[in-house]
C-alpha cells in the first residue's frame, strides 16, 4: 500500500500536469477540446480531501482556475463555429498555401475599402503660426537669468495686504462655512431636488467674482461640504450641498473634475446661453 506522503506527491504531480496542459492550450491557441475536462475534474475531486497545507490548497485552486479558462475557451470555440465567419481552418490554410499571389490580391482588393484621410496646412493655421512666431521672444531673451535688484524693506499694514489680496478678511474656514450656508440657502430658493446648476451658483455679476466663487466651490466639494453631480449627455453639472461635511467619501476612488470657468463661458451664462 502507498504511503500518505507518496500519494500526496502523486496528487501534486497530477495537478501540475493538468495546469501545464491547460497553459499550453491557452498560450498556443490549440483546440481546447483536447483537454479531458471531466477526467481533470475527477482528479481534482479525488485529491481535494487530502490537501491540508496552504500550498496544496493554492495548487488546487490554480488547477480549477486553469480548467475554468479552458471551459471558457471551449464555449468561445463553439460560439465561433456557429457564426457565419467560421471556416474550417485546415481548408482555409490549404487554400492560402496554394493560392497565387495575384489571385489573393485580386480578391483582397474587392473587399478592401481603405480609409481616406488628409493632412494639409490651412491658410488659417499658417497665419496663426506666423503670428505666434512674431510674438515669440528669441531664446537668449527667454532664457536670460533673472536680474535681481536690491530693494529696501519697509512696513505694510494688514489693511493694505487685504487690499492687495495677499491676506483675506475672514479666515478661510469661516469663509468656506458661510459660503456653504449660502449654497444651502440658494438650493432651497432656486434649486430643485436638493441641487442647483453649477453655473447658476458660481455665476456672478462680474467675472472676477465668478472665478472667486468657482474657487470656493471647488473647496466645498474637496472638503465634503458639497458634492458634484455630472450628467455627461446633457452636459450639465449640479452642485448638491451635504447636510453635514462628509469627511471620508466611502471607499470609492476619488477623481478630480476640471471645470473651465473661462470669460467666454461666463459671458454665455450671462446671456442665458448656458
Amino acid at each position: 500500500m502507498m504511503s500518505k506522503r507518496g500519494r500526496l506527491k502523486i496528487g501534486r504531480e497530477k495537478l501540475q500536469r493538468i495546469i501545464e496542459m491547460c497553459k499550453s492550450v491557452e498560450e498556443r491557441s490549440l483546440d481546447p477540446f483536447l483537454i479531458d475536462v471531466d477526467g481533470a475534474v475527477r482528479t481534482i475531486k479525488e485529491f481535494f480531501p487530502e490537501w491540508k497545507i496552504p500550498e496544496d490548497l493554492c495548487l488546487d485552486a490554480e488547477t480549477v482556475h486553469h480548467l475554468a479558462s479552458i471551459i471558457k475557451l471551449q464555449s468561445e470555440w463553439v460560439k465561433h463555429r456557429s457564426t457565419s465567419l467560421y471556416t474550417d481552418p485546415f481548408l482555409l490554410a490549404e487554400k492560402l498555401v496554394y493560392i497565387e499571389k495575384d489571385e489573393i490580391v485580386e480578391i483582397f482588393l474587392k473587399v478592401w475599402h481603405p480609409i481616406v484621410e488628409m493632412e494639409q496646412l490651412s491658410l488659417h493655421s499658417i497665419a496663426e503660426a506666423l503670428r505666434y512666431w512674431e510674438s515669440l521672444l528669441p531664446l537668449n531673451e527667454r532664457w536670460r537669468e533673472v536680474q535681481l535688484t536690491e530693494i529696501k524693506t519697509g512696513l505694510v499694514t494688514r489693511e493694505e495686504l487685504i487690499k492687495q489680496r495677499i491676506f483675506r478678511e475672514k479666515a478661510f474656514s469661516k469663509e468656506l462655512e458661510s459660503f456653504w450656508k449660502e449654497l444651502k440657502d440658494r438650493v432651497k430658493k432656486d434649486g430643485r431636488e436638493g441641487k442647483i446648476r453649477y453655473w447658476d451658483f458660481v455665476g456672478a455679476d462680474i467675472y472676477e467674482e465668478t472665478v472667486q466663487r468657482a474657487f470656493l466651490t471647488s473647496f466645498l466639494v474637496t472638503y465634503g461640504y458639497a458634492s458634484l453631480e455630472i450628467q455627461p449627455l446633457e452636459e450639465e453639472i449640479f452642485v448638491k450641498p451635504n447636510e453635514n461635511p462628509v469627511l471620508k467619501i466611502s471607499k470609492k476612488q476619488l477623481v478630480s473634475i476640471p471645470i473651465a470657468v473661462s470669460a467666454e463661458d461666463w459671458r454665455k451664462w450671462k446671456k442665458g446661453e448656458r
Partner: protein
Amino acid sequence: MKRRKGYYASKLKRAVHMLFYRRHKKPGVKGWELRKVLGTDYPKVLKILDHYLKALDLQVKTIFEEEKTVERPTIEQLDKARFYITLRGELTPKEAKMIGWRIDDLAGLAVTIAYIISKKGKVPRKEVEELLRDKLPGWKVSLNIDRYIRYGYLTQDENDQLYLDWRTHAEIDQKTFIDMLLSK
C-alpha cells in the same frame, strides 16, 4: 426651405472637415464628438454626406463598439461608434501600387488576415511567419508583420499572439473576403 438647406450645408462642411482631417492619433471621429459639434441630428448630416460622397466613390463608414454589426442603432450606440470616410468601390492593383502597396506586401496582408480569421481571431506570430516565409523572402516577413501592426491592421500581445486590429475592422469586409477565398 432655403434656410433649412443652408443649415444642413454648413453642418455638412463641418462634418467633412472633421471626418477627412485626422484629429487624433487614429483617423475617424467618435459619434459623441460629432454630436458636440454638429448637434443631435448628426446621424442625418452623415446620411446626407454619405449620399453626396456616393458620386465620388466614397462612403461614411460606421464601426460600432466591439466591431458588432448593428441593424438599427440607438443614439447611445451611435455616440460610442467611430465614423470614417472610406472608399466605396474597389481599387485596381495598379491603383493599390500607387498608394504605396507592393503586390507582395498586399498579398502578405491578405494571407495574414485570412489566416487569423480562420483561427478565431488569434494566432501565434511564429505560425504566421512560417506561412508567409513560404512565398516571401525570410528577411521581409518580420518587417512586413511589424508594418501591418504599425498601420493598425494587426495587434500583438505580450505572448506574441497576433489579432486583427481597428483598421482591419474599418476597411475590410471580412465575411465577403472569406467567402470569396473559399469559392476560388
